[in-house]
């Protein structure tokens, strides 16, 4: 894969009147990376994308593409191509005219454009569909035409603003694989905006988790999932069980947390917070549903949680147990289905066990909304 053109955001602030949409963002995106901004709606991720594409001038700070400052350079002069959430295909142009619109601007002949359109249509697996109108294609096909139109402009950076959100679940999952394949084939930098953590985790080389204008963590998917830097990142990405409490003792990279409801428990301090979490601090401990197992009756210690089971459900690949948890929230436990028999625990107390390496402590902070 070619090295590609990277993107840097330096001390980026974007304000709309008094409202701060993006607060001091510093991001380095490697050339050729599939990079995602992941966050709930209204967190400022689309604003960042508009600043990179040039539709919006940052209030402070710089956008660098390939090391070149983009200040004062309009969207039609930047080496970026944007794929809009609603695709924004031109409804009155045929598919091939849509795809080669960027060449038409540069004055390419119709024959040349037609040839290029056919190549791109082959690439997106829509051969021979060039003479249709966008309205004659299905949602997934339109999606691919929008990608081809953007790629035809030969951008160094492709910007994607939740382009899969209008598709149904099956197609969305299929398009994830396809997008990733296209990105690897063309080797250019993709910047992808999404609120769907599944999309971000499956496609991205690196992910920036955003909350209310602030970037909480930038890392690859595995790190964000296993080693979140903040309570928000831990609760937004994937399912997680939270235990609130105070750090009673810090022992190297582990801490003993005095939880509000579940006694004293040991967990690993997330990498970003090592050396920063002090004894007596408010802390949150996160344990994933799949990190629990059911312990033998009577077991106790600093990695056992006892709670009353409220209900259970069978999901096929996993068996879910819900118990009373902290602050009205349930603790969810997922036991993989290996064909064993499951005993119904509803109404009983149950002891759960976890490996302290799979429990993460971060400073207390804002959780993601359900």
């Amino acid at each position: 894969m070619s090295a590609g053109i990277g993107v840097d955001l330096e001390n980026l602030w974007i304000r709309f009147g008094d409202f701060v949409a993006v607060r001091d963002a510093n991001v380095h995106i490697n050339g050729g990376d599939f990079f995602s901004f992941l966050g709930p709606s209204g967190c400022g991720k689309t604003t960042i994308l508009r600043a990179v594409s040039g539709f919006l001038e940052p209030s402070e700070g710089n956008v660098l593409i390939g090391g070149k400052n983009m200040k004062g350079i309009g969207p039609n002069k930047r080496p970026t191509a944007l794929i809009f959430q609603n695709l924004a295909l031109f409804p009155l142009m045929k598919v091939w005219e849509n795809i080669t619109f960027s060449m038409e601007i540069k004055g390419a002949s119709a024959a040349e454009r037609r040839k290029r359109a056919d190549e791109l249509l082959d690439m997106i697996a829509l051969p021979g569909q060039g003479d249709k109108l966008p309205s004659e294609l299905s949602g997934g096909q339109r999606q691919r035409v929008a990608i081809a139109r953007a790629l035809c402009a030969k951008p160094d950076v492709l910007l994607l603003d939740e382009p899969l959100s209008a598709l149904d679940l099956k197609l969305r999952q299929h398009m994830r694989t396809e997008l990733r394949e296209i990105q690897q084939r063309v080797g250019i930098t993709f910047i992808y905006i999404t609120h769907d953590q599944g999309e971000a985790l499956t496609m991205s080389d690196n992910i920036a988790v955003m909350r209310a204008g602030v970037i909480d963590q930038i890392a690859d998917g595995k790190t964000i999932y296993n080693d979140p830097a903040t309570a928000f990142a831990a609760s937004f990405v994937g399912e997680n069980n939270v235990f609130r409490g105070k750090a009673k003792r810090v022992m190297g990279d582990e801490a003993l947390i005095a939880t509000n409801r579940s006694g004293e428990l040991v967990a690993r301090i997330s990498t970003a917070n090592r050396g920063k979490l002090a004894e007596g601090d408010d802390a949150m401990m996160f344990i994933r549903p799949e990190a629990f197992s059911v312990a033998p009756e009577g077991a106790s210690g600093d990695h056992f949680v006892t709670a009353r089971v409220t209900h259970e459900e069978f999901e096929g690949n996993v068996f879910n147990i819900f118990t009373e948890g902290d602050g009205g929230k349930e603790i969810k436990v997922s036991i993989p289905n290996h064909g064993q028999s499951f005993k119904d625990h509803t109404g009983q107390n149950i002891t759960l066990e976890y490996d302290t390496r799979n429990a993460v402590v971060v400073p207390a902070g804002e959780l993601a909304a359900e």
Partner: protein
Amino acid sequence: MPSFLKEFFNRNGTGMGLTILGLVLFWTIGLIILPQLSMLDFSFRPNLPPPEIGGPKDVYTLENYKYLIYGPEGGSQDYNTVDLRVFFRTLVAAVCVTIFNLILCYPIAYYLGQSKGSHIRIFAIMLIIPYWINEILRAFALRIIFGETGVLNTLFTGLGIWDTPFDFIRNDIALYAGLGYAYILLMIFPIYNVIESLDRNQIEAARDLGAPWWRIHWRVVIPYAKPGISSGCTMVFMLSAGALAAPQILGGPSSLWFTQLIYQQFNDNNDWPQGAAYAVVLLVTCILFVLAMMRLFKVNMGDIGK
């Protein structure tokens, strides 16, 4: 009963359905089609004094139409050059007014359609309110502005830019301004309506792909706005060609509008058949011209209704 009628009655109920249907039919047949047919009938009859109407001389004839082309029988010229010249000049001028209006109104409609905020409503109200004043008063207001001792001439001669007053009226500038101004809303609102529904992302997508502003308009906005543009142009052309008040008040002494000839035939010459023939010729020519233009620009009849 055809299914669309059945559905119509189901939706509105029999009583209301019949009322609506009756009113629509009365409107189209009673107020439009029948009077026009009567005009058509007039145009093929000789101009007779009342006692002879229905008498042996009251037969269908092409006299009135011949008159427009050849002039009075035994006249000094082979063709009725005076009236024909007025006729074609009126059509050309109406086309010019339409094009001028389009050039003026498209940017306004685009701005109104693509901006957001309450100032747009204020802008629209400011466009509409002058039309509460009746057409004749508006025309006279323009006369005050363009007249020999009017606002413009006083201003420019006062500033020493012109030595002598410029005759806006004799040069037809007042007339074109008046006609253009009279139908501005009919051009702006159809275009505005269409452009308002244009997805802003399409404009941004075109820009993002490298298009300069004029190409965005040429390839994205104008094709999308075509129904509105054709609807506005059709109305402005038809109404300009058929305007009477503005040419009457703002036209120079030498510039007759074809409608003024029709008016003269009806009122001054008391020659209804001749006036009817002229009116029919104007109407048919305008309709054919509009149809030809629609064909040329590939506009469907359905688009006009947008």
